[in-house]
């Protein structure tokens, strides 16, 4: 096992940088060094000026000071370059660390977490959110060193040079601060209003764009455009209100932090002090050179602040992914005795949705003997899929237990469990790799003959041979070249090769490709032969021969038996059956006059 990068999940932008904190500290220090040397190089100017102003300038002294300035600028340049490189390389390293940590973590959390969020969201976390940290980690950290060093150092130098002028210079800063405070006095409140308006406008934009397709089938979009326009107006008004309140102080602050007012103040006070005879020109020069930098030092940080906000949001999301509790692993793993499945008093609700009526499954008990076929039936939302997914431990049950071959699934390692249960769902998964390797994913040590046998059984051999490189053809990402049915058959071949004793099947897969339904159906037959089979059933005729049919209704097991028994019972199943037959016989008729009774096209 690789050592986890974090001892506890990060909670913010600083703790997420923990794995590279040494480098970041280095980058900040180098940034500070470059700032210090850069300011220091300016201090060579007044002595040079003093020499030049003296009666007999000493060229040697001038060149020495100039030489020192050159050295300091060189150091500033080198350390700035180093700070920049260190922080960027550290940021890149952090990206790999975070992505690997998330990949590791996602392998340990309940599969249900992965399935419900979907690969799109996971891609966003692992790519975009991690990337959003870059601006902060790489670009901002060296600037932090500069932003604190320059004002502090300038201040010390200025106070040492002439405290009166220093105070005159600093007068500008508090004035600016007060104005900024004024501009932001109800910042939190305004920000809230703005955030709400912003959220609303984003929601409306999404709705406008996504709904456009539908809206356009009604009119030219004028109805939803009016909605869009109304909330856009609201948003703009909020923004205007905010700006109206803060603009005065904001503009004043912007103007004050320009170098000119500071220079003016220094020149005026300096001239006055010189008139008093208590200030020399070289000292005044120190201020003319340093003071504007003091005011300017905050600027880059302010301009990068919106990137920082993005980084913060990304860090929070990454933190919450890494904080997702992992699926507990047993201390002493056990192995199942046989391929039977037993559910005893299983109750389950999705965490976060535990508000009573959102219970997905309630006290379900069901015994599935090894080698039998059990169908799960019920309206959408009845709990069929949830129940099927609890067996391979997509989530852990809230109450009760699920056992395979007498062993609680929570007492097995993930590897053991996954080697007992295969599942074939509608969403096919193919690697961007050869067809052969895609099938071998079920059993990496399988021989070519075994792969081919599995493909034959899955009705895939023929079309695979027809591909340009046969088994060595690369399966296109998201299947640009393979049809849905072909992809389905490759995943079935994988499951056949895997040969796990228990198969969980979503029946809809049998109809994934309407043109080739018969081939997929044969493939499924090959996969499920002699297995314990659990089918999530949508079409009733296909499960008429199942050993047992479990009928679910709003999370409860309401009926159980075979087809004939259940039809005879006259309950939920028999009603579903009647509905099914009615739906099958639907014939669309356009004219009002036609009242011909429906005829059974099955006959």
């Amino acid at each position, binding site marked *: 096992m690789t050592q986890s990068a974090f001892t506890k999940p990060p909670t913010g932008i600083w703790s997420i940088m923990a794995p590279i904190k040494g480098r970041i500290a280095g980058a900040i220090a180098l940034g500070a060094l470059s700032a210090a040397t850069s300011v220091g190089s*300016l201090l060579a*100017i007044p002595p040079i000026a003093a020499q*030049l*102003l003296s009666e007999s300038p000493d060229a040697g002294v001038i060149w020495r000071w100039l030489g020192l300035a050159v050295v300091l*600028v060189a150091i*500033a*340049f080198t350390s*700035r*370059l180093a700070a920049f490189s260190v922080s960027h390389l550290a940021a*890149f390293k952090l*990206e790999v660390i975070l*992505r690997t940590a998330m*990949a590791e973590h996602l*392998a340990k959390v309940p599969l249900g977490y992965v399935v419900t969020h979907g*690969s799109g969201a*996971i*891609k966003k976390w692992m790519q975009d959110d991690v990337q959003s940290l870059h601006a902060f980690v790489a*670009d901002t950290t060296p600037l932090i060193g500069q932003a604190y060093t320059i004002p502090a150092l300038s201040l010390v130098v200025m106070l040492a040079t002439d405290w009166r002028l220093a105070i005159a210079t600093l007068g500008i800063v508090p004035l600016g601060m007060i104005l900024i405070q004024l501009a932001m006095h109800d910042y939190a409140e305004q920000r809230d209003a703005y955030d709400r308006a912003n959220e609303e406008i984003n929601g409306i934009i*999404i*709705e406008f*764009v996504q709904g456009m*397709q539908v809206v356009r089938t*009604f009119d030219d979009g004028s109805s939803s*455009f009016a909605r*869009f326009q109304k909330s856009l*107006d609201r948003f703009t008004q909020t923004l205007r209100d905010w*700006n109206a309140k803060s603009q005065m102080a904001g503009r004043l602050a912007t*103007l004050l932090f320009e*170098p*000119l007012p500071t220079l003016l103040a220094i020149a*005026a006070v300096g*001239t006055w002090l010189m008139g008093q005879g208590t200030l020399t020109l070289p000292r005044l*020069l120190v201020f003319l*050179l340093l003071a504007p930098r003091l005011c300017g030092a905050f600027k*880059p940080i302010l*301009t990068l602040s919106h*990137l920082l906000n993005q980084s913060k949001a990304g860090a929070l999301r990454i933190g919450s992914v890494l904080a997702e509790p992992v699926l507990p692993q047993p201390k002493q793993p056990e192995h199942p005795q046989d391929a039977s499945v037993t559910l005893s008093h299983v109750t389950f609700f999705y965490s976060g949705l535990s508000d009573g009526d959102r219970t997905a499954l309630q006290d379900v008990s069901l015994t599935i003997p090894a080698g039998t076929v059990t169908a799960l039936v019920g*309206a959408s939302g009845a709990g069929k899929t949830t129940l099927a997914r609890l067996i391979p431990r997509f989530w852990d049950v809230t109450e009760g237990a699920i056992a395979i071959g007498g062993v609680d699934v929570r007492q097995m390692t993930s590897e053991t469990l996954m*080697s007992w249960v295969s*599942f074939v769902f509608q969403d096919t*998964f193919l*690697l961007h790799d050869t067809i052969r390797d895609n099938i071998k*994913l079920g059993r*990496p040590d399988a021989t070519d003959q075994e792969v081919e046998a599995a493909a034959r059984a899955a009705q895939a051999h023929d079309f695979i041979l027809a591909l340009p490189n046969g088994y060595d053809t690369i399966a296109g*990402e998201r299947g640009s070249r393979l049809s849905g049915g072909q992809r389905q058959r490759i995943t079935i071949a994988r499951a056949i090769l*895997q040969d796990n004793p228990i198969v969980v099947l979503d029946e809809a897969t049998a109809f994934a490709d309407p*043109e080739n*339904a*018969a081939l997929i159906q044969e493939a*499924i037959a090959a996969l*499920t032969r002699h297995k314990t089979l659990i089918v999530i059933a949508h*079409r009733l005729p*296909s499960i008429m021969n199942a050993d047992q049919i479990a009928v679910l209704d709003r999370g409860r097991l309401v009926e159980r038996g075979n087809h004939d028994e259940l039809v005879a019972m006259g309950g939920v199943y028999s009603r579903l059956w009647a509905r*099914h037959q009615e*739906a099958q016989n*639907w*014939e669309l*008729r*356009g004219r009002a006059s036609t009242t011909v009774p429906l005829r059974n096209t*099955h006959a």
Partner: protein
Amino acid sequence: MLKTYRRMMVVAGSYKPQLQKALALSIIASILQGIIFALFFPLLSALVASPVNFQQAWQLLGLFGCLVFVEGLIRWQELDFSWLTSTDVAHETRLRLGEKLRHIPLQALNQRRSGDLNVVMSGNVSELVMWIGSLATLVIQTAVVPSVAVLVTLLIDWRLAVALLIFFPLAVPIYRQMRSRVKTNLRKSVNADADAASRVVEYAQGLPVLRANNQVGARSQRLQTALECQRTVQRQGQRLVSLPLITMSTLVEVGILIIIAMGALFVVQGTLSVPALLALIVIAMRFTEPIAQLVGLTSVFDLMEVGLERIEAVMNIPALPVPPVPTALTRFDIHFDQVYFRYDSHTQWALQDVSFQAPARSLTALVGPSGSGKTTISRLIGRYADVQAGAIRIGDVNIQEVDPAHLMRSISVVFQDVYLFDDTILNNIRMAKPDATDGEVEAVARAANCYDFIARLPEGYATRIGDIGGTLSGGERQRLSIARAMLKNAPIVLLDEPTSALDTESEVAVQDAINQLVVDKTVIVIAHRLSTIAAADSILVLEDGNITEQGSHRELLANRGRYTAMWEAQQQAQEWRVVA
């Protein structure tokens, strides 16, 4: 540069004069700033003179103060744009984008992922407008202030002016080189990112299988390789970019050193006065901030550039041509007359020489394998895009001669997936006919079998869709969409697999609702289950964009062609049992 300016003006829209004014003010303020800096020459001269010429110094300081005040006033005016007008620009830009989306062909809308358009309308607009004022000002300041300073220097000492002139423009080629390196590397890193992203997607999708083989986390070779490759590209890019970037930010410091060295030499030679040199140093120092900021904001520039490009791309989509004198539809039979259609960016015809007629109030079914052109036909009736050859007529009128809004009012569409707005149930139905009374809406809701489930909702018809989230089932959503279509009561109804995604229980209710909807309408239906459309007046069998068979169910079965094969395959699949 000029391109960016032109684009900025396009985005500014009707606020173009305000933006131009802000830019002009910025130029004036910057020139003024250059002149103010030049005041340091006489000021320092006065202070260096012995005895110090205080009278002149205070006069100069007075002028200095006045000019700073005037410069402040001008900047204040200029900030009008950032603080006030920019909000209106964003508003107008969003409205213009919104308007655009209403009038482009649906095909163009479909080609763009809705996520992209969201980003353009919300993110890009904010980014642009937030920065458009401040960045333009910054660029102007960086260019104008040094130029003025160099001009003034020229009056003092031409040698130093030449030194400045040679040195500071260096920033331009260095900056250019950095930008071009960034761009080259961007392409590489986009590829590496895309590769890593697809590996991540693959990993996420494959987790169940990968877990079984213990190929997860750091042991997932494929993922690790892609991540490492991404890092390598990033490091390469880093190496390329950092040197010019840092060189630029150190440029001013080195420039000042050169001025000091040259100036000291000239002073010692007696060809330059000390105050002139000192003033020059003070002025040159002021070039530091704008250049440093410009470097720091490179990423913002990129954002803005990209934002401008994307907004422009949307704005440039040609709108669906609208006839100057639209013809109204009076009859509702549909004619396809040797229609050829190809989707944008496709090389193959989606429809080739397709001709058929659907008489008014008849039922026409489209069948065939996926990709054969069924959906294309139904889309083209609503003028999804214009055909390349041939004509589609409703009544005797070519649909290109009809006002698109009028055409859309004549057609109801029921798709597999239903889009509901975050509004009340009542309003979601009413959008089909904004002036419908509550009674009318409730009547169609009843007719579409919606009444039962609406009655169960916490606030009935007043329940907001957003408040009940995903609790409506597919069948319930579908019935709402059918109620909408009923309220609209358009003479043409297009049905695209309306029940294929539903479970048995809702299917019957939806089927009932559709039966109500299609009465006395011209109906075009795409249905996979052939038994559904066996009673159609005409069935068109499509293959590869061609109509290969055409006739009633009975006629087609007698043909013993493709339709018969499909029919028999379906009968067989219906019989399928999980356990043989």
